[in-house]
């Protein structure tokens, strides 16, 4: 059985996106997912392939994407968790909704899945907080969930940007010498980065940073989070 623990944060984004599109549209096409997540269609195809292998979605060639029973369950869980986190940030910590949306997304990507799991369990189980804010939460959860669901999410891993897209660095999760080198080369929080191109095999990517060209493998760019502009 595939649990939330062993699927990556970006796959969880996919599940959530598919779920939400399926609620408003008749069918879910690759294009819809690509638009919502602001990711190139080619990468969407790849990830959908992986999700198919995991038995979470089904898709005939060029046909619509559908969640399997398992997939639906997981997607629900992801969404629920996302909203729980969001309401916690907004209502308990008093974070601005826009920032909370961004941070919730970042937390899901950077924090280990185990911690995320425990955190949401804690949020759900912690009745004192649930009781005290229950009325507002129910109400707001609805509205923020909707608001966030309608707009494409703006926080992305750098690797998911399309050619020509620009972003501002908000978090660098790289480790070791790669991190050092990335910082030294001028990618620090707040730096603007645009994607200039991809190598012929689709990886690495060519970026413009501080007016010069820098190449990064996608796996390295996946650790850099940007706010798409």
């Amino acid at each position, binding site marked *: 059985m595939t649990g939330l623990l062993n699927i990556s944060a970006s796959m969880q984004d996919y599940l959530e996106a598919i779920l939400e599109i399926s609620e408003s549209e008749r069918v879910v096409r690759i294009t819809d997912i690509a638009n919502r997540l602001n990711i190139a269609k080619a990468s969407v195809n790849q990830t959908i392939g992986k999700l198919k292998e995991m038995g979470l979605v089904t898709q005939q060639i060029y046909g619509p994407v559908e969640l399997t029973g398992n997939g639906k369950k997981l997607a629900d869980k992801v969404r629920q968790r996302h909203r729980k986190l969001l309401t916690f940030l907004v209502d308990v910590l008093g974070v601005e909704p826009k920032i909370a949306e961004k941070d919730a997304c970042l937390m899901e990507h950077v924090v280990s899945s185990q911690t995320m799991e425990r955190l949401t369990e804690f949020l759900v189980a912690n009745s004192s907080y649930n009781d005290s804010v229950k009325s507002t939460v129910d109400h707001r959860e609805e509205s923020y969930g909707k608001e966030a669901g309608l707009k494409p999410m703006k926080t992305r891993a750098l690797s998911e940007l399309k050619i020509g897209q620009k972003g501002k660095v908000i978090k660098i999760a790289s480790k070791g010498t790669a991190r050092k080198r990335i910082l030294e080369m001028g990618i*620090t*929080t707040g730096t603007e980065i645009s994607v200039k191109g991809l190598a012929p095999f689709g990886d690495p990517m060519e970026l413009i940073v501080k007016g010069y060209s820098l*190449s990064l493998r996608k796996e390295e760019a996946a650790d850099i989070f940007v706010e798409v502009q």
Partner: protein
Amino acid sequence: MEAVKSIRDVSKIVIALAGNPNSGKTTMFNELTGARQHVGNWPGVTVEKKEGMYHYQDFQVQVVDLPGTYSLSAYSEDEAVARDYIALEKPDVVVNIVDAANLDRNLYLTMQLIEMGANVVVALNMYDEAQKRNIEINIEQLAKLLGVPVIPTISVKGKGLKELSQQITVSANNPNKSRIRIDYGKEIEEVLREIQEKISACGGIAENFNLRWLAVKILEGDEGVTKSVQLPDELMKMRNNAVQKLEAMWGDDMESVMAERRYGFIGGVTREVVTRHRSVEEKMSLSDKIDGIVTNRFLGIPIFLAAMWVVFQFTFALGDPMIGWIEGLFEWFGGLVGTGLDRIGASEMIISLVVDGVINGIGSVLVFVPNIFLLFFAISILEDSGYMARAAYIMDRFMHSLGLHGKSFIPMIIGFGCSVPAIMATRTLENKRDRMITILISPLMSCSARLPVYILFVSAFFSANQGLVIFSLYFLGIVLAIIMGVLFKKFLFKGETSHFVMELPPYRIPTLKSTLIHMWERGSSYIRKAGTIIFAVVVLIWVLSSLPAGVEYASQESWLGQIGSFTAPVFKPAGFGTWDASVALIFGILAKEVVVATLAVIHGVGEEALTQVIANTWTPLAAYAFMVMTLIYIPCAAAIGAIKRETNSWKWAGFAVLYTLILGWLMAVLVYQGGSLLGFN
């Protein structure tokens, strides 16, 4: 380290050149020193050390070219070398070459040099390129904000050199430490002050280093510093506590915050001095247009392959006739000396030593010279033009899936021509692990010297499927290279995989002068370093073939023949357990193509008739196993020399010999035994 200045001689100045890769530092070094340079190695590492000299007015200026680095954080050998030199040797002046068209990132290194307390002079290089991009820099203001002299230069055109030399002598005689320091913010500054106090309180350490720089490095947790300097536990504890507190406060680690502050400071500087900053969305420059074609999704690979083909052709098609001339020259010279010695009554032994040993030995070193010089000419052009970085960029996806780096592809392709330049071409790999692996596997690429051996056996047995059989050997070489690469990575060079954070420099037209200097430096270092080893092996084999006194050269009675008879049983399972096959293999260490000549000599026939002899005395399966052995076993003497030279270690050269020998034997046995089982003979 050398260059100890016990008594300060006023007329002598020692300067170090520091700068980012692609900032024009090497060109500057060449322009300053001309031909008066010396290339060596930094002690203990494989990083090249270049030194040169020039005179200006009454001063004799010694120039040390530090490796090109983006930073001085000592996580790569290059950076450690540069940093140690500046911190410990304390050159009179550090000339920092800064790419004017890429000011932000280049100033990162500048700020570190200033932070170290070096006596910095900034050469604002490629000033014309910046102007072309409409980047106007207020130089006076820049000098003021950095607190160091700034001289605009265009190194490729030799502009601004006089002013720079003038400034160097002035600065050397009036050391000036910039008072500018990056303000890391109140919280960090407090901790820095505390660390500084603690260090100066325990004395000793502080004398060698700039106090603030040391404090910054300790706070950053720089391993190069914390490991080399004995720090009191109490200090480290205080540091760790402070870091924990600060990191919790910012929600980010120390390194990031400090890099951010540095770049923040630099951003402030450039905002003030640069009038038209190059924004992200500026219109396409020529470089971008070229890039659009060269790294194009569809054209990128064909262009890359075409470029490799041209390099290959240039190196081998142009070089091979020259090899013929060199061989001819040495043959003629050998003959001349031989007759000369004979006439003055020298013994046969002496003649053989001089002609077969010494002259032949020197010849076998020099035959590689045309290939190597041409190859390095081509590689220099690829590097200086900026294409090398694109080649790595294009091939990285493929090479990375094999656990290697994009830049490993080029040496491996060159390996099809000759392992020696292939091994030397690994210098473009920055990461030591990638480089070692590439060096160790490139001899498995079937070089052109192995082809004559294949041709001999193929025409004896496989004339119907010539192409297929030869191709199978090339293919086997590639497959084994990949497998060994993966194994080495897994077992010998474990640890963090190398990253691919690489600058793609703008395209530039390489200058002939720097290309020639590059070619000369690398080519001549081959002759000096690998040459001695090759020569020694050639002479050793001569000695073994000629002793004990009186035996026929390379006969079964010679020591070499005895060794051959002794080792022959080892190759019995591989199907070629005869003394002559063993001797041919031993001679093949000189150069793989010598296997053919050796068999011809042993059988007392010309190379033409040899095919017939082989066809009569060998079986097809044994012949194939022997070809497999020839492909894999021990790299030739020249390649061994190159491995020793490039890894700076006998251990790795020995390892390459051993592993290829074992692998070759295993594969040959596998082929022979497997083939026998399948009913081949």
